[in-house]
């Protein structure tokens, strides 16, 4: 192990910022991070061991205790549930002889839940040693069981098991016509970089990651910072349950994305760029690096790009995450890039003035960079001609849930929900989760509403539920998701998301009484208004948006009594009953007083 780690650290140039990459390699090799490894890494990277332990315990994909040689994680998103996650879980437990959350006694397999893997259009999905397994079926599980029993390395497994589909169904401005590698940069150099920024400004392009900040303004602010060490970061953390469009863009349109990043670098004067790729998209890592190598050969990256009059030097490095939704938040992402726990920073200062290692940094979504590249080629007018007043152009949606054709749909901003439902073949609709759990749940009476920053904003998640679905199950899944993903930095979210989870469980499980919905709503408001970052501020949205639309649904769960305990009273006597060997009437308690 000692030489393995020495080599690894050498390969990472003794950079403490590369801690996640180092730990990913150790976890892959040893299926946990051994104590001795922590000590050695601390010495070689000159960082305290506490930083390493902190990082291991922060990210879901790192472990202090051994997992199986085959680490199997099943996606626990609501869409996976709808596609049979529970049945597959039971089948896996039986076939592989391992309980969810455990390591098999022979140490060969471990099995656990994981947050949405971004395969919502082809679930139920799983990860095996980090690699995406779409569309689980009993037949595939049988096959996997054989492969595992033969102890065949995952790299030698049949490729069909890992066949992730793009499912691009509707294309428009961005997806319809590909630009050639270098086309956007050529045009921009010819037009002039300042003029190109003006085109992007004119296009009205706003960030596609959710917040919708105007892209040209962000680039402008960053370029005004006086230093020659600007940074460009592409946010490909895509952790919002129900979103998978960035996966498709990076699989099928990676040149566009890298082109957009390089364009940004040229405009703001950056030499260094990062693609922060969520760990769940490990399957894209090698091919993306190959594309970067191609772009070097084409003179689109590296020194003096395209030999233009302005001397642009730019390189892109791909950094993998390790299972933490919060790392999609831009300042947490930057912390993660620096090799730390993904805890959101205090603002101000904003990343555009002090980002990665304190340097002015532009963070944009994958789709934003792609759109910028296309605007550089086609001009701002071309883009602004479509959309609404405040939402120009198109939005790429990841559509999943109850519809005939889940997949990628590029819709014009201003499109009505009804038109989108018609496009994808959704019938008997109960409601739609727009923008993922952190967004809004709308009911089937709101189908005339529009996709636009003015009305329903979304980073791309669009989950459809039909009338067979239970709203409280959905809300419960989302609420558990946030409690699991809270980074724990601030009190209202750290404690509040767990309290929300418990309070909702109490109501959903039928132990709620008169005051419990009011208490739930109060808690929602507290978490929403007092939390430090977007995660906590939106964690109560699933409850709040459904409580607003279906108050009777919550009320119906409540018992018509003034109070009921939140824990199971009779079960609390179980141990004592067993030890005293009693089962008489006095050895039991009713949950609420009778009579």
């Amino acid at each position, binding site marked *: 192990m000692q030489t393995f780690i020495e080599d690894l650290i050498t390969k990472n140039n003794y950079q403490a910022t590369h801690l996640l990459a180092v730990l990913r390699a150790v976890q892959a090799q040893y299926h946990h991070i051994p104590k001795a490894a922590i000590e050695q890494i601390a010495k070689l990277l000159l960082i305290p*061991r506490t930083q390493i332990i*902190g990082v291991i315990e922060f990210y879901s994909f790192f472990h202090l205790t051994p997992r199986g040689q085959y680490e199997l994680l099943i996606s626990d998103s609501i869409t996976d549930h709808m596609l049979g996650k529970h049945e597959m879980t039971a089948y896996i437990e039986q076939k592989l002889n391992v309980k969810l959350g455990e390591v098999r006694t022979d140490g060969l397999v471990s099995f656990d839940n994981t947050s949405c893997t971004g395969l919502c259009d082809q679930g139920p999905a799983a990860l095996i040693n980090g690699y995406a397994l779409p569309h689980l079926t009993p037949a595939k599980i049988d096959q996997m069981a054989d492969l595992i029993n033969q102890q065949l390395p995952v790299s030698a497994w049949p490729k069909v098991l890992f066949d992730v589909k793009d499912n691009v169904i509707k294309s428009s401005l961005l997806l319809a016509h590909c630009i050639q590698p270098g086309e956007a940069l050529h045009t921009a150099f010819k037009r002039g970089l300042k003029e190109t920024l003006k085109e992007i400004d004119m296009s009205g392009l706003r960030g596609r990651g959710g917040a919708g900040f105007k892209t040209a303004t962000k680039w402008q602010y960053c370029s005004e910072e006086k230093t020659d060490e600007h940074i460009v970061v592409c946010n490909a953390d895509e952790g919002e349950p129900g979103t998978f469009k960035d996966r498709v863009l990076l699989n099928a349109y990676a040149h566009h994305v890298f082109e957009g990043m390089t364009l940004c670098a040229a405009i703001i004067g950056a030499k260094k760029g990062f693609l922060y790729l969520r760990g769940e998209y490990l399957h894209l890592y090698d091919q993306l690096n190959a594309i970067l190598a191609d772009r070097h050969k084409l003179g689109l990256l590296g020194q003096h790009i395209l030999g233009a009059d302005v001397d642009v030097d730019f390189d892109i490095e791909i950094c993998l995450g390790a299972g933490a939704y919060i790392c999609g938040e831009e300042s947490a992402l930057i912390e993660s890039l620096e090799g730390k726990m993904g805890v959101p920073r205090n603002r101000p200062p904003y990343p555009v003035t002090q980002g990665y290692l304190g340097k002015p940094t532009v963070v944009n979504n994958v789709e934003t960079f792609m759109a910028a590249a296309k605007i550089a080629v086609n001009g701002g007018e071309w883009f602004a001609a479509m959309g609404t007043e405040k939402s120009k152009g198109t939005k790429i949606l990841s559509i999943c849930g109850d519809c005939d054709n889940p997949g990628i749909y590029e819709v014009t901003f201003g499109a009505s929900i009804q038109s989108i439902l018609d496009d994808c073949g959704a019938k008997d609709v109960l409601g739609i989760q727009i923008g993922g759990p952190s967004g809004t749940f709308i009911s089937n009476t709101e189908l005339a509403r529009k996709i636009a920053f003015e009305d329903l904003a979304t980073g791309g998640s669009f989950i459809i539920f039909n009338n067979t679905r239970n709203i409280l199950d959905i809300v419960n899944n989302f609420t558990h998701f946030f*409690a699991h993903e809270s980074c724990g930095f601030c*009190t*209202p979210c750290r*404690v509040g*998301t*767990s309290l929300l989870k418990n309070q909702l469980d109490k109501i959903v499980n039928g132990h709620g009484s008169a005051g419990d919905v009011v208490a739930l709503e109060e808690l929602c408001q507290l978490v929403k208004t*007092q939390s430090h970052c977007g995660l906590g501020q939106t964690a109560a949205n699933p409850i709040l948006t459904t409580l607003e639309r279906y108050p009777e649904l919550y009320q119906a769960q409540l018992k018509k009594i003034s109070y009921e305990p939140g824990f199971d009273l009779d079960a609390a006597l179980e141990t004592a009953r067993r030890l005293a060997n009693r089962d008489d009437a006095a050895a039991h308690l009713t949950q609420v007083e009778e009579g």
Partner: protein
Amino acid sequence: MAKTIMIDGLSIPFEEGQTIMQAATDAGVYIPHLCHHPEFSPHGSCKLCTVKVNGRNCSACTFPAMEGQEVINNAKDLNADRQKITQMLFVEGNHFCPSCEKTGNCQLQAVAYHLNMLDDHFPLFYQHREVDASHADLLIDHNRCIFCTLCVRASHEHDGKEVFAISGRGINKHLIVNSESGLLKDTDVSAKDKAAHICPTGAILIKHTAYQVPIGERIYDHQQIDQVSLNSEQVDHDK
């Protein structure tokens, strides 16, 4: 003319680069806080210091004072939220004040008194947490840690060490210490360190000093935390 902000209708002068908390403290205005300490870089995690700045919630301990700010601090709704946040800290840990050496001198307790907190409001978590009594002079009772990171910052910024750190995610956050064994006795901490004395709660205690001050003479027996805090922190800030 000095720049000013308004806090609860009072005009408060500030210097460029000061946070709202610093400006308020200098002017003798108390903003409830637990993770803030004037000697260390701000952290912004406990959220007790949330104030409304031009209508928006901001952490006073991290947010820069800027000309023209209208700040609301001592308001009923804000204090109600602060009380709930304090209650969250109580139910998350295990705070049995009657058996805690820090009682009477504890900032968490004092803030709770100040906010007139009479109960825990939320269901208690009763999370199992350890006590590390391995060190000859110091003790860590994890049941009482509120993750303010003051010990982390004091060790790093003042003592020039890295004895403490916060690890884990979400509700599983916990304090860890920097030794191979994971025990305090094997770190380079000393009872003379600032970090050993900074804990606002009874999570880090100096051994053999318990209950030396009789009830009635403890820090918060007669003085509220707003006064105590201003008395020490205004001075701290000036030096």
